[in-house]
C-alpha cells in the first residue's frame, strides 16, 4: 500500500515539474497566425458555481459560433482558457497570474464576482490587459474608470434610485415607508447608497436590514422591517434568498411591495411560488419571452453549441452581449489586432446593435456599460417577468449625483 | 480447561514478546502466574482474550485451547461468550458510567433473560457489599479498592468459567488486598470459577493458588504446585523477598540466578 502512496506522490511531483516547466512562448501576446487566446476564471466548485456553469456554457457556445459559423476572425480561431477560482480572491490572483503569465492570453472575458475581481484590479492595470467585461456588482469596477477594465452589469445604486422614483412617480404612493434588505457586502452597500441618495432627494427615511452572504434565516431582518412598518422593500441579493425573504415575510404576515434587483430576475425567484407574484424587478436586458431577434439568434447559437441550459437564464445576455461586441470589434480592427486597438474600438461604439438584448455602451472615460433599465413585474403563474415600462434612466443620473 | 501450547507472540512485526510458553488452567482451580515487570504476563492474558490483533500484536506460533477448542483466532467478544473474562490491569472501570452501569456492561454478552441477570446482580452485590452503597456514583469517583471490586464484579457478571485477574493488588492497601483475595477465593469455591491470577505480590498469590507458573523474559522458567514453589530457594529469594541467611541480595547474585535460570528451563 505504501508503495502505491509513494509512487503516487512521485507522479504528483513529476506532473508539477512538467506543468511548471512546459514552454508556452509566443511571439505576440495571445495572438498568433491562427489563434486568438482569451482567458477567463470561473467558479466551478465554490459558492458561485452555478454562475460558473452558465458562463462556461456561454463561452463554449460563443467559441463554436465564431470558429465554425463565422469561420474565425480574419483567419484566426478563438480559444478560451478557463481557470477555476472557487470564488476565492487568492485563487483568483493565482488564476490571473497564470492566465497572463503562463497561458499568455490576449484578453480576459466573461468574468464576474465582486470579491474575486476586486483582488486583481491593480494587476489588471499593471499587466495592461483588457478585461471585457466584468459582471461584478461593485462600483469600484467602473468608478473611477480604468482603461482596461470594462463593466457590464446593472448598478444596484441605479436600481434602488429607480425604485424610489417608481414609488413616487408611477405608483404615486403618499408617504411610503422604504426598507431595504441587502447582502452585507459591496453589492448590497451599493444598493443601500442608492436608497440613501434617493431618500435625500425625496426627503424619505429608510430602514436597512443587512444579511450575511450565505445566511438563510431571514427572520430577524423581516421582523426588523416589519416592526418599522415598511411598505416598500428593495432587495439586493441572490434569487433563492429573495424567495426565502418572501416566504418569511408571508409567515409573519408582513405584506409590503417588493422590488428585486436585476439578479432576482431568475427562475429561482419562483421558488417562493405565488408569493412572488405582482412584485417588481429592475432589469437592463431584453427578455426571451418578448421574442426579440437578439434572443432568437441566441437560441439558435446556444442550441447548436450545447448551451440550451443557459437559455433558461434571463441573465444570459449579460455574458453574451459583450461577447457580441467583442466579436464585432475584432472583426472591425482587422488583421493587426492589438490590445490597445481593441480598447479604442470597444469604447468607440455608439448604440451598439444588440437586436433587443439591451443597451451596451462605453466611452473613452466611461466603463459602465448599462445605463437604462426597465421595470418588470413578476407573473408567478406563468413563471415570467413582464416589462411594465419603457427603458428609462434613474432620476439621479450616474456621474451627477 | 484452558491449555496454552508453545505460544509465541510478536508485536509490531519485530518485538518478540512471548517465546513459546505453555500453561494449563484446570476446572475450578486458582492458578498463580508470577513474574517481574515486562515478563509477558499481561501479553499472555491479552492473547487469551483475543486483544492482540487490535494492538499490532500477532500470534506467530502455538495454540490456545479452551475445552479442546482452538480459540486463539477468535474475536474478543466470542471469547467472552465462551466464558473467559479478564479483569484488566489497573482496573480500567468505565469512569464516566455509574457503578451500576459498569456492572450492567459486564453482562453484555449474556442473553439468558432478566431474571438470571437479576439473580447474578444480587449475588455479586452480596460478594461486594461495599459496592451496593455506591451504585449511583460515577465509577471514576469511587476509591481504588472499590474500583478493583467493581472490576471483578463486572467480570463476574459475564458468568465466566475462567476469570483472569491482572494484578488485582496493584496500588491497594495491604488490608484491602487481603479482602479482595478472600473474595476471589470465595468466588472460586462457591461458583466453581477457575481463576488465573497474574501477580507481582507472589506471596499472596501463591497463598491462595494451587499451582503456579513463573515467567521471565517471555518464557516460563519454573512451574509447580504452590507449596513447592514457595519452598524453592530462588523463588523465595527473588519473588518472596526472603533469603535464608537474611542478607541483602546483590547484583552479582542476580546474574548468577539468571545463569541458573537458563539451565532450569
Amino acid at each position, binding site marked *: 500500500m505504501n508503495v*502505491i502512496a509513494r509512487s503516487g506522490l512521485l507522479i504528483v511531483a513529476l*506532473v*508539477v515539474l512538467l506543468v511548471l516547466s512546459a514552454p508556452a512562448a509566443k511571439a505576440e501576446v495571445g495572438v498568433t497566425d491562427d489563434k486568438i487566446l482569451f482567458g477567463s476564471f470561473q467558479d466551478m466548485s465554490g459558492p458561485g458555481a452555478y454562475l*460558473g456553469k452558465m458562463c*462556461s*456554457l456561454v463561452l463554449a457556445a460563443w467559441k463554436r459560433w465564431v470558429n465554425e459559423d463565422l469561420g474565425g476572425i480574419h483567419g484566426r480561431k478563438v480559444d*478560451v482558457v*478557463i481557470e477555476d477560482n472557487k470564488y476565492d480572491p487568492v485563487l483568483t490572483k493565482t488564476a490571473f497570474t497564470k492566465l497572463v503569465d503562463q497561458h499568455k492570453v490576449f484578453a480576459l472575458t466573461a468574468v464576474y464576482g465582486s470579491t474575486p475581481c476586486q483582488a486583481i484590479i*491593480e494587476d489588471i492595470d499593471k499587466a495592461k490587459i483588457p478585461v471585457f467585461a466584468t459582471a461584478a456588482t*461593485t462600483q469600484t469596477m467602473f468608478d473611477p474608470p480604468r482603461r482596461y477594465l470594462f463593466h457590464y452589469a446593472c448598478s444596484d445604486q441605479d436600481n434602488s434610485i429607480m425604485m424610489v422614483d417608481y414609488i413616487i412617480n408611477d405608483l404615486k404612493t403618499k408617504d411610503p415607508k422604504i426598507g431595504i434588505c441587502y447582502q452585507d457586502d459591496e453589492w448590497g452597500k451599493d444598493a443601500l447608497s442608492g436608497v440613501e441618495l434617493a431618500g435625500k432627494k425625496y426627503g424619505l427615511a429608510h430602514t436597512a436590514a443587512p444579511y450575511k452572504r450565505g445566511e438563510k434565516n431571514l427572520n430577524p431582518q423581516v421582523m426588523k422591517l416589519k416592526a418599522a412598518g415598511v411598505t416598500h422593500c428593495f432587495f439586493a441579493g441572490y434569487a433563492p434568498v429573495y424567495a426565502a425573504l418572501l416566504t418569511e415575510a408571508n409567515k409573519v404576515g408582513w405584506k409590503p411591495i417588493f422590488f428585486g434587483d436585476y439578479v432576482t430576475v431568475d427562475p429561482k425567484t419562483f421558488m417562493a411560488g405565488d408569493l412572488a407574484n405582482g412584485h417588481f424587478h429592475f432589469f437592463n436586458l431584453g427578455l426571451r419571452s418578448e421574442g426579440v431577434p437578439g434572443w432568437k439568434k441566441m437560441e439558435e447559437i446556444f442550441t447548436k453549441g450545447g448551451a440550451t441550459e443557459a437559455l433558461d437564464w434571463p441573465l444570459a445576455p449579460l455574458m453574451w452581449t459583450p461577447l457580441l461586441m467583442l466579436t464585432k470589434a475584432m472583426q472591425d480592427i482587422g488583421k493587426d489586432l492589438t490590445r490597445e486597438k481593441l480598447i479604442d474600438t470597444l469604447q468607440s461604439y455608439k448604440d451598439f446593435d444588440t437586436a433587443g438584448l439591451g443597451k451596451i455602451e462605453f466611452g473613452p472615460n466611461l466603463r459602465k456599460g448599462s445605463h437604462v433599465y426597465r421595470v418588470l413585474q413578476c407573473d408567478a403563474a406563468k413563471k415570467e417577468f413582464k416589462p411594465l415600462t419603457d427603458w428609462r434612466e434613474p432620476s439621479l443620473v450616474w456621474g451627477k449625483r | 480447561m484452558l491449555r496454552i501450547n508453545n505460544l509465541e507472540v510478536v508485536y509490531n512485526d519485530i518485538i518478540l514478546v512471548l517465546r513459546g510458553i505453555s500453561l494449563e488452567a484446570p476446572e475450578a482451580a486458582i492458578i498463580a502466574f508470577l513474574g517481574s515487570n515486562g515478563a509477558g504476563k499481561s501479553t499472555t492474558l491479552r492473547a487469551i482474550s483475543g486483544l492482540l490483533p487490535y494492538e499490532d500484536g500477532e500470534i506467530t506460533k502455538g495454540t490456545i485451547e479452551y475445552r479442546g477448542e482452538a480459540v486463539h483466532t477468535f474475536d474478543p467478544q466470542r471469547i467472552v461468550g465462551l466464558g473467559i473474562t479478564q479483569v484488566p490491569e489497573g482496573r480500567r472501570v468505565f469512569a464516566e458510567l455509574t457503578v451500576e452501569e459498569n456492572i450492567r456492561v459486564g453482562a453484555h454478552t449474556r442473553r439468558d433473560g432478566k431474571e438470571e441477570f437479576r439473580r447474578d446482580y444480587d449475588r455479586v452485590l452480596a460478594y461486594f457489599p461495599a459496592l451496593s452503597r455506591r451504585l449511583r456514583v460515577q465509577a471514576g469517583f469511587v476509591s481504588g479498592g472499590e474500583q478493583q471490586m467493581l472490576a471483578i464484579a463486572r467480570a463476574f457478571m459475564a458468568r465466566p468459567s475462567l476469570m483472569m485477574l491482572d494484578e488485582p493488588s496493584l496500588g491497594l492497601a495491604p488490608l484491602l488486598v487481603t479482602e479482595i483475595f478472600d473474595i476471589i477465593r470465595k468466588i472460586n469455591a462457591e461458583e466453581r470459577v477457575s481463576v488465573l491470577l497474574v501477580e507481582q505480590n507472589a506471596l499472596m498469590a501463591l497463598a491462595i493458588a494451587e499451582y503456579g507458573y513463573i515467567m521471565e523474559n517471555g518464557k516460563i522458567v519454573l512451574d509447580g504446585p504452590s507449596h513447592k514453589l514457595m519452598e524453592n530457594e530462588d523463588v523465595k529469594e527473588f519473588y518472596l523477598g526472603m533469603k535464608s541467611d537474611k542478607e541483602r541480595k546483590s547484583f552479582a547474585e542476580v546474574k548468577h540466578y539468571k545463569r541458573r535460570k537458563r539451565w532450569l528451563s
Partner: protein
Amino acid sequence: MAVTRFCVRTYRQDLRILSSPAAKIGLILFLLVLLTLPLWARKYLVFVACISGVSVIGALGLNILTGMTGLISLGHAAFMGLGAYTAAILSAKAGWPMVPCLLSGAVMSAVMGAIVGVPTLRLKGLYLVVTTLAFQFIVQHVIYHWESLTQSDKGIKLATPAFLGLEFGSYDSFYYVILFCAVLVAVLTKNLAMSRTGRALVAVRDRDIAAEIIGVNLAKYKILAFVVSSFVAGLSGALYAYLLGLIAPDHFTFNQSILYVAMIIVGGMGTVLGSVLGAVFMVLLPEVISAVSGPLASAYPTLAPRIGGISVVVYGLVIILFLLFEPEGLFGIWIRLKRYFKTWPYTY
C-alpha cells in the same frame, strides 16, 4: 510505528542541525536552486513559490502551537489576518516602510495570541478547537465590519514594499524577502525545537499534567506557544499582504485555517521539515489538479461545470488516502527514503 531517528553517539551530534555531510551538500544545492529561482523561472512559478514561502512560514507557526505543543487551532488564519491588516493599515494609512510594518504585524498578532492564550489554558482537546474557531469567526467579523479602519470588502491597498532604498514591488524581487523570512523562521523553529523550551513544549503536548508535575510551568509554556506561533503567523500574514498588494477579509477565512492544519498534518506533525514539505505540497496540489482539469475544461467546455466538483473530490481524496496510508505524513516518507538509501542494499 514511531519514526526513529538514526543513532547518535554524543549530545553534540544530537544537537547538530545537519546530521551528515551528505545533508550539507544536499542543502547547499537546494539553497542554490532557491536562490537563483527568479533568474530562470517564469513569473508564474515565482508567484507560486512566493505563495509557498508564505505558507511555509504560516505552517511553521502553526506547527509550534499544534505540532509541538499539541494545542489544536482552527483560528490560524485569523492570526495571519491580524498581522496582514496591521501591516496594511500602517503601510497604507500611516505610510510606514516595509520592515516596521512587517514587525508590527507580527507583534500585533503575538499580543492577540497572548490574549487568546490565557483563557484557553483551561481548555482541552476539541473545546480548544472550537474556541479557536470562535476566535477565527469573531476576527473575521470585526475585520469585515470595522469599515472605517479596514475598508471591509474594498480591501486595503499597500504601498510598494521597499527596504534600504531597494524596491520589492515585483514578485521576482519580493520573492527574496519571503525566502529570507522563511529560512530565518525555519532555522529559528528548528533551534527552538531543540532547546530547553522546545522540549518543555513537547512535554506539554505529550502529557500536560505530568509535565506540570516535573516542573514545567504549564501556563507559561502554553502562552509562550501561542505567542510565538501567532508572531510567526502575523509575520506570514504581513508578508502575504505585501505579496498580494491588496488584502480583503476573504483572504483569511476558516477554509484557510483548515488548509494550514492540513499542511502540518500532511507534512508530518511536530517536525520543521514536515511543515515545510506539507505547506509546499498543499500549495502545489491545487496547481496539479488544475493543470489536469484546466486543459480538460478548455477542451471539453460542456464538461467544465463538472470539473470543479471533480477537483474538490480529488482534493479530499488525496488527503484521505494520504492519511490512511501515510499517517506520519511526508516527513515519514522522507525518513523512510533516507533510511532506504542509507542502508541500501540491506533492508534492515
